[in-house]
């Protein structure tokens, strides 16, 4: 059997302040109270503050989670000096670059942008060579004509009217301009993450056999809402011409489901190289803006996030996925926090004769607490780590007074934007790979949960987990 491994990772943040107004929550609230629009505009962060924000620097790899833990909160007031938008396994791009990506991803002439935005996009979208000739704009007069003749959504850049996306059908809610805007933003950010994942990788786009999309978008029309498959749409743009693909839908847990499935496909010999990808969730932009306004802090859900992973045969410089150490949350397991972690963490470790303390790091729900705490949603990672620590106490692995140490050593602060599937364990994989290359990490467990109940078809939650370990060659090199 081939040993499956994660060979390369990439992460993207697209700063999109003018997209916040079209998040699900801001859209609904501004409809009710139009005066909120000005308050939203006043509470948005400038580019340099977004780049220098410590959790964002951690997301792209310029800071480690331990570096972040050492920075006092509020992180909003402790920005990183001389911060760069490019990191070892991720980057932050501007809104103009995002508009450019959306334009080149638009196969149906849905999106119109101005000449000025197009020109700015061509300048600011660096290290990306696909379809650049499709980043074209129109004059202000032409834009006005498009708006007058079509039903759709006006788009803004730096607070000014700068574009338009039209509905693709008069009476199909699935092809409404707002839905298409969400889907195109998801595709565009995923395209950048997948393009980047090949940089410095031994795998080329044409080597990829299969792609799993794991985003939270719903691509389809009135007869198959959410039909997908964004995987092939993304692969087409970046030149994965020999790949096919599909979507895995499991709310926030989809990326971990997909990584396990990809590893199984590689191990079986069915496919050699698989890309797992997820684009940004436009619907979640500004999700907690009311709480941020109420607390006098900037609206921090101002970035779309995306990620991509290459799964293939272990090449000696990778993170092996231990298929004998995967966890699942069975339908009959119960939904308490203890039952979930028993199924996802303890059961797979016990099967292999391992203790919870045999795992160097746990990557759980990695939501940035600075975003969630103003809305009284608490510090989600910390809550999860304390549950894990309590279970280690109950199992007699640690003493009660060692819980804080367990959390500090085997956990980490949340550093991911609240983009649903993005925070669910997988933001740590880039850091895990770097730590394994440095010889600092021998085993990590990635744990994701999904809120199936939100769709009103079941009261169940979901969850899956897997363990990664360094390639044997990495371990030997570091000995």
């Amino acid at each position, binding site marked *: 059997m081939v040993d499956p491994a994660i060979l390369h990772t990439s992460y993207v943040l697209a700063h999109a302040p003018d997209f916040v107004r079209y998040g699900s929550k801001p859209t609904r609230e501004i409809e009710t109270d139009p005066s909120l629009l000005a308050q939203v505009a006043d509470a948005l962060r400038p580019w340099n503050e977004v780049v220098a924000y410590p959790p964002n620097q951690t997301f792209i790899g310029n800071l480690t989670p331990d570096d972040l833990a050492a920075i006092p909160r509020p992180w909003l007031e402790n920005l990183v000096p001389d911060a760069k938008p490019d990191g070892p396994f991720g980057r932050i791009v501007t809104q103009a670059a995002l508009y450019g990506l959306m334009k080149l991803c638009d196969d149906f002439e849905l999106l119109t942008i101005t000449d000025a935005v197009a020109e700015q996009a061509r300048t600011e979208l660096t290290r990306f060579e696909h379809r650049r000739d499709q980043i074209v704009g129109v004059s202000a007069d032409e834009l006005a004509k498009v708006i007058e003749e079509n039903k759709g959504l006006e788009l803004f850049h730096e607070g000014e009217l700068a574009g338009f996306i039209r509905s693709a059908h008069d009476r199909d809610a699935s092809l409404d301009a707002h839905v298409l805007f969400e889907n195109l933003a998801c595709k565009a950010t995923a395209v950048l993450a997948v393009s980047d994942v090949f940089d410095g990788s031994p795998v080329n786009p044409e080597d990829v056999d299969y792609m799993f999309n794991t985003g939270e978008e719903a691509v389809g029309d009135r007869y198959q809402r959410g039909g997908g498959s964004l995987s092939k749409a993304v692969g087409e743009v970046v030149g994965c011409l020999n790949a096919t693909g599909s979507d895995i839908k499991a709310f926030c847990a989809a990326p971990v489901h997909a990584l396990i499935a990809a590893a199984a496909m590689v191990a079986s010999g069915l496919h050699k190289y698989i890309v797992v990808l997820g684009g940004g969730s436009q619907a979640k932009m500004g999700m907690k803006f009311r709480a941020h306004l109420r607390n006098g802090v900037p609206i921090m859900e101002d970035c779309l996030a995306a990620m991509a992973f290459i799964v293939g045969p272990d090449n000696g410089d990778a993170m092996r996925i231990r298929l004998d150490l995967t966890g699942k949350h069975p339908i009959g397991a119960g*939904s*308490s*926090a203890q039952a979930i972690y028993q199924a996802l963490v303890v059961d797979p470790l016990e099967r292999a004769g391992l203790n919870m303390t045999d795992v160097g790091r746990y990557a759980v*729900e990695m*939501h940035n607490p600075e975003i*969630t705490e103003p*809305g009284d*949603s*608490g510090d*989600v990672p910390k*809550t*999860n780590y304390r549950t894990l620590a309590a279970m280690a106490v109950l199992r007699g692995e640690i003493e009660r007074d060692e819980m804080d140490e367990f959390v500090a050593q085997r956990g980490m602060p949340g550093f991911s934007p*609240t983009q649903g599937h993005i*925070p669910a364990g997988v933001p740590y994989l880039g850091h895990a790979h770097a730590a394994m290359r440095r010889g600092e990490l021998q085993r990590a467990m990635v744990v994701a*949960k999904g*809120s199936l*109940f*939100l769709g009103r078809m079941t*009261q169940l*939650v979901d969850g899956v987990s897997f363990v990664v370990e360094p390639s044997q060659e990495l371990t030997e090199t570091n000995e």
Partner: protein
Amino acid sequence: MDLKDKKVVAIGEREGVNGPSLKLLAESAGASVVFSVTQCFV
């Protein structure tokens, strides 16, 4: 708190106690649960 014969709205959370569990608890204390839901606040 005495919940007997009280009307209860049970709002649970994925990272804490879910809605169905809150509903069972309230009903076992004699309450009538008029609405129960689980939220995901992230």
